[in-house]
């Protein structure tokens, strides 16, 4: 085989090859000459000598070359990126790293996992991240299930029971290695993504977890002293700090920069939360027996003790010092403009303060909760309404209770109650209209839809109710329900829009909404709404797993969707 010019049809590279693959986008092609593979440019110049037994297809510009059963990496430009010394090279994962093995073999008895050899890690440019010197290479991956070989999930480290088709699963910030294949933490070194040992193996370690903030949480066992408990290894100082004996003190989570919360046993029945610093100081100052919470989005802490609340950041720097407020809500920093801190003063009144802690909305409310740049607030008569960031009224204080699904934005609708046990009614905020329909229960969904259970409706007296029930409970019970028997264990309701119009006519469970949603949105795009026929079809399809029919009988029309 050779190459001809596509336009002139003239031969440009002579037919001297056993195989000639198409040219890649950068102008090189893989060729086979006398059984050996190499690469040529468009002039026929040999850019990679024909000496390889195989050159794989290129993925992301990289191919694996094989020579005498050893593998290496080749770029699409024909540059050899590594030595050809590896027995196995995995595909690169989405983070651009791959595991490599020298000396291992595929073990057919172990579901084709690779056994033996030394393991390492390569980066996509061919550079060695972890040299092949380790009998075992472990990744930190709580989610990773070792499907196909071990049949189980380890919570801390993933074993190197790998097959050729497996890739690394993490970005490789940290790995654990051991000289020989050893699953015990006591014999594993913690290394960083460049192969440097950052925490040497320690015989007392029984488990250790991936560090997030320079501190490695370890569970240790001191066999001689017969104690076990938690400790942290400081990657900067190379020192352990001990949390304590498992009977008295227990690690709670990772450090957020300078502090980590720990549980301390007060007496037989009481546990309090305090903080430990990276130096091992257990801060009695921040001794929070009443309340402790952290914000997933910011890492900030809110803690209270003796009715005094503080907000502080990940370095234990106070943002709102204790003493001024008895309660603080986590603010929403994701909004373009900071809406303010909703706080409760020491007299029990709620208001909003700005970042300098100056009063933004007066402390005259019995409750304030953020919703986008607005707040819903309870006035002195214990009635809820909505106010904007300056305290101006958006919705009058007239409701005993309200339910809002904000998703970080100002709400378009809300549900209201006029007394403790009253029904829910829809309030359309843009229209300033309270609808008269009454609901026993409501759940707000996306796009201003809601799932509602009407308070007094005869839901279950038509064939659609029968179908509704048929997909969630056995048929004989479904018939009874369809005939009017009330069911309190499986709530069934309707989906309505922001004006109380039924989007789904049939009573459905809240869970069923996911089956209706795609068709509702498809119809919306076509400028249509779901019909009863559509609903019938969807309900039939939800229940198709349960419905079987004798082949020799004619199936009733109502069981068919068309």
């Amino acid at each position, binding site marked *: 085989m050779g190459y001809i010019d596509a336009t002139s049809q003239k031969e440009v590279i002579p037919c001297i090859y056993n195989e000639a693959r198409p040219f890649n986008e950068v102008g090189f092609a893989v060729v086979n000459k006398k059984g050996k593979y190499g690469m040529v440019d468009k002039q026929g110049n040999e850019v990679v000598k024909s000496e390889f037994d195989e050159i794989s297809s290129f993925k992301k510009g990289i191919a694996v070359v094989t020579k005498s059963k050893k593998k290496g990496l080749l770029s699409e430009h024909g540059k050899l990126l590594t030595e050809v010394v590896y027995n196995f090279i995995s595909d690169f994962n989405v983070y651009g790293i791959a595991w490599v093995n020298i000396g291992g073999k595929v073990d057919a008895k172990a579901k084709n996992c690779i056994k033996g050899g030394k393991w390492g890690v390569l980066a996509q440019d061919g550079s060695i991240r972890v040299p092949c010197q380790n009998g075992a290479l472990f990744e930190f991956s709580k989610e990773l299930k070792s499907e*196909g070989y*071990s049949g*189980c999930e380890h919570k801390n480290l993933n074993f190197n029971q790998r097959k050729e088709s497996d890739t690394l699963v993490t970005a490789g910030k940290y790995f654990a290695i051991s000289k020989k294949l050893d699953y015990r933490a006591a014999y594993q070194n913690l290394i960083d993504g460049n192969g440097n040992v950052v925490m040497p193996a320690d015989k007392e370690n029984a488990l250790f977890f991936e560090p997030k903030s320079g501190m490695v949480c370890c569970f240790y066992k001191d066999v001689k002293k017969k104690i076990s408990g938690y400790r942290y290894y400081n990657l900067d100082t190379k020192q352990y700090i001990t949390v304590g004996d498992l009977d008295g003190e227990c690690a709670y989570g990772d450090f957020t920069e300078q502090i980590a919360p720990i549980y301390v046993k007060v007496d037989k029945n009481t546990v309090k939360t305090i903080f430990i610093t990276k130096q091992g100081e257990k801060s009695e100052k921040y001794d929070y027996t009443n309340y402790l919470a952290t914000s997933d989005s910011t890492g900030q802490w809110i803690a209270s003790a003796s009715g005094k609340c503080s907000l502080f950041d990940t370095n234990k720097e106070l943002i709102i010092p204790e003493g001024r407020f008895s309660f603080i809500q986590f603010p929403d920093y994701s909004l373009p403009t900071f809406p303010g801190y909703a706080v409760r003063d020491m007299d029990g009144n709620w208001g909003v303060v700005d970042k300098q802690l100056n009063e933004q909305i007066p402390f005259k409310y019995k409750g304030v909760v953020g919703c986008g740049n607005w707040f819903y607030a309870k006035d002195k008569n214990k009635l809820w309404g909505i106010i904007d960031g300056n305290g101006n009224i958006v919705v009058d204080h007239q409701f005993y209770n309200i339910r809002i699904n904000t998703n970080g934005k100002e709400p378009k609708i809300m549900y209201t109650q006029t007394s403790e046990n009253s029904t829910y009614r829809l309030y359309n905020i843009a229209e300033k209209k309270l609808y008269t329909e009454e609901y026993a229960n409501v759940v707000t969904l996306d796009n201003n839809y809601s799932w509602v259970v009407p308070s007094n409706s005869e839901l279950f007296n038509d064939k659609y109710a029968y179908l509704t029930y048929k997909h969630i409970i056995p048929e004989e019970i479904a018939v009874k329900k369809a005939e009017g028997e009330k069911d309190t264990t499986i709530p069934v309701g309707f989906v309505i829009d922001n004006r109380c119009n039924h989007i789904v006519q049939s009573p459905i469970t809240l869970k069923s909404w996911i089956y209706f949603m795609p068709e509702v949105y498809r119809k919306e795009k076509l400028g249509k709404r779901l019909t009863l026929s*559509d609903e019938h079809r969807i309900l039939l399809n939800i229940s198709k797993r349960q419905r079987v029919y004798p*082949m020799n009988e004619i199936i009733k029309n109502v069981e068919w969707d*068309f």
Partner: protein
Amino acid sequence: MGLLTSCIVTLMKRKNILIILFAATTIFPLAAQTDAQGNPLYKRSSIYSLMIKHTEQKMADEIHNEYVGIATPDKYNDHDLSVKVITLDSKLYKAKSDDENQAVTNFLEQNKVASRIVAKWFERDETDGSMYMDLIKERGLYNATEFDKELAARSSRSKALLEDAGEQLIGSTFVLVNDIRYIDKEKRAKVAGGILRALGAALGSVAGVDMSDTFDNIADLTESIRGFRVRINSFLYQLDWNESVAAEVYQHWGDKDYFENNRDKFHLKYVGKVESSGSTTNMQGINADLPSMIRKSLNRAIDENVANLQRNFEQFRCKTPIVSTAPITAYIGMKDGVGPESKYEVLETVEDEKGKISYKRVATIRPNKKLIWDNRYQALEEGAVGADLGCTTFEKTSGGQILPGMIIREIK
């Protein structure tokens, strides 16, 4: 002249009567359409598949449970109806014969399945009988606005559009009845069990807990389902759609009673059958749990049958677009029956000025034997050769220029 071309076709759509006229033709190539990710779009055949469950067999419930979760093959549109499982408490009579199976045909006829397939195409509303063209527009990749405009204008192009929809979409609807039987073969799988036990012991030493019980259970399970196999007889039917049948729909558009009273006018024609090999599926790379093993065996057997049906029956062959031309690649692989000896024709989609689509052969290709994608169910997890290719690479064997978006179809 046929019914569609000899008479004025009347479409009653929400009381609007549309009259379709005709014009002369000129042919020009059609540019390939792509989705938001740039993947070529093309018209696919549609399948309604259902299974015959043998209630007298062990594993019947497990097979049933997994079968209803299997998706329609991705080269076809899902045209499933709400009935997916029918039961039989004995072997299907003459299941091994290649001839039309009377019991299967009777089921389809008596339940008027053909009319239900047609009703689904037009999204017929059971309460008032109204019908819609939205599904045709979506699957036919027609510009919805243009399509509506042509129909409303009663243009000659609208007639061609309907003919095209009829030939390429509605007429390419298939029913696949899968008669699934479990084969109980003794085959030891103790090796796998042993490995699990060994790993259990190793894990226990790390975590400081005794995990041996858990692993013994997994190992026992592996052994209890040793040699799991299914054998599937797949009976293929095609919707009989021609001008007179089309006229039945269009002339009585949205007439609820007429459609109900004339469901018998729609028919399926028997195409043929294939039987899966019943070979043991390689269970490497999957969890050693029963649902996973059943799912894999079922998927592999169904894929095998679909590929063989394509090979044996031209009308069932799926078309797939060319993805790249240097090298020539397409998202098609072993699951779709691509093998070292496969041959494909490359088709250019051409549209006449009335909007009628046809295909013109421009080249023939064959797969590069070393670059055949193994896209069978869980091939990647199994570590199968070629499972990570993502597409099959082809070589041109004859013909002219091949462009991305052109369609390929297997030839014998």
